[in-house]
């Protein structure tokens, strides 16, 4: 079955190529971790049903996280025990969120999305100054499950040992984050960090590394539901996946040269613009 060369058909192919290019660029320039830019950008620019955009976005999250994980696994920062424990909360939340998604109208999703983005701005801005929390008393769960750990801090030039506390608080927060993540197609890295660093008083570096470790698994939990439901449309999701993967492979070199601070300075205004745009769409102004 050779596809005809009529214009309608060509537009479709050009569109998918453009999408690949766009995702590659987005991943490259914005350190696109989760689907944070894919979801907002797909519906307005390409005018797609937000449910399908979320399906594509979840795929991009897995691509980002699995693509980057190969490098991060051996950093000795990730707290694997805490990660797997909290994945219990995020993956259950994610499956529920994915099941819930079809029952929510698009407009509600736009609103939730805007709120969620604004919510994650707080921890990102706070992260500009980072310190290791001291005098943390481990709670019963942390002692029982041996959640404390140690990591080599290059900036401080010593090994930092830390304790973990308020595990139920972190666990509950992670459940909500997992739910929202699958509902909206976001990696929700910033909020995962918040649950660990504010909720469980873990050091920022450990929280960030552990959050990266968890993002892929959380996204995969929701992705299966989207996949079989048919909300991961191949011609949309494949260019997104290929673009993101190419961006991860090519972008990794570039990122090493940018400082964290600079990346965040670029990123926070971008998120603000997107949040406002989604809000406007939610109230149907634009």
């Amino acid at each position, binding site marked *: 079955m050779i596809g005809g060369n009529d214009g309608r058909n060509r537009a479709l192919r050009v569109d998918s190529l453009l999408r690949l290019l766009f995702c590659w660029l987005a991943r490259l320039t914005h350190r696109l971790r989760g689907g944070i830019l894919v979801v907002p950008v797909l519906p307005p620019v390409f005018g797609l049903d937000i449910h399908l955009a979320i399906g594509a976005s979840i795929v991009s999250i897995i691509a980002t996280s699995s693509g980057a994980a*190969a490098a991060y696994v051996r950093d000795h920062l990730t707290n694997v025990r805490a990660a797997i424990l909290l994945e219990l909360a995020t993956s259950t939340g994610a499956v529920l969120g994915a099941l819930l998604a079809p029952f929510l109208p698009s407009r509600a999703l736009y609103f939730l999305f805007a709120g969620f983005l604004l919510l994650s701005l707080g921890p990102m801005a706070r992260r500009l100054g980072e310190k290791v929390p001291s005098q943390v008393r481990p709670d019963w769960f942390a002692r029982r499950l041996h959640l404390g750990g140690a990591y080599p801090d290059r900036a401080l030039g010593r090994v930092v040992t830390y304790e973990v506390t308020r595990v139920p608080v972190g666990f509950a927060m992670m459940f909500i984050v997992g739910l929202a993540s699958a509902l909206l197609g976001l990696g929700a890295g910033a909020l995962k960090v918040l649950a660990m660093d504010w909720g469980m008083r873990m050091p920022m570096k450990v929280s960030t590394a552990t959050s990266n470790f968890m993002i892929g698994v959380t996204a995969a939990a929701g992705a299966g539901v989207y996949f079989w439901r048919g909300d991961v449309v191949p*011609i949309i999701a494949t260019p997104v996946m290929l673009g993101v993967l190419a961006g991860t492979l090519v972008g990794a070199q570039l990122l090493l040269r940018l400082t964290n601070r600079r990346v965040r300075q670029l990123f926070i205004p971008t998120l603000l613009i997107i949040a406002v745009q989604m809000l406007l769409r939610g109230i149907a102004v634009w």
Partner: protein
Amino acid sequence: MALDKTAAQAASSIRPDSTREHIDLLVTRVLRWGVLCAAAIGAAGFLLFVLRGPQPGDPQSLQELLSLRSETFATTLPAMVRSISTARPDDVMRLGILVLILTPLLRVALMLVLFVLKRDFVFVAISAIVFTVLLLGLTGSIGR
């Protein structure tokens, strides 16, 4: 340089344990191959699509794609297996995406193995539950 050295020493003093190193390496390899596999299959399907264009039953134009409703393309594993042999671009791309979704599952499976080797049975149980939840989500046996 000096700092690098301390950090490296610190790292080796924290985790002397070779099982963990071994699993780490395996995880890295599994993730890399999973991602490359997904990318290769996805790229093949995408190339097929760009060359051959949309097949009957797929959205034929941009308008159709944009007006696509959620749940139009619900699929099942048997249906996918049946259609693999015909190598429709959409189904090849779908397979690539499925491989990508499966990589984190493999990662959790490896963690499970790590905890079994360490005889840390509380965490064996925890990772087994995570694995089950993922499997339930991935097989689509819930919500159906």
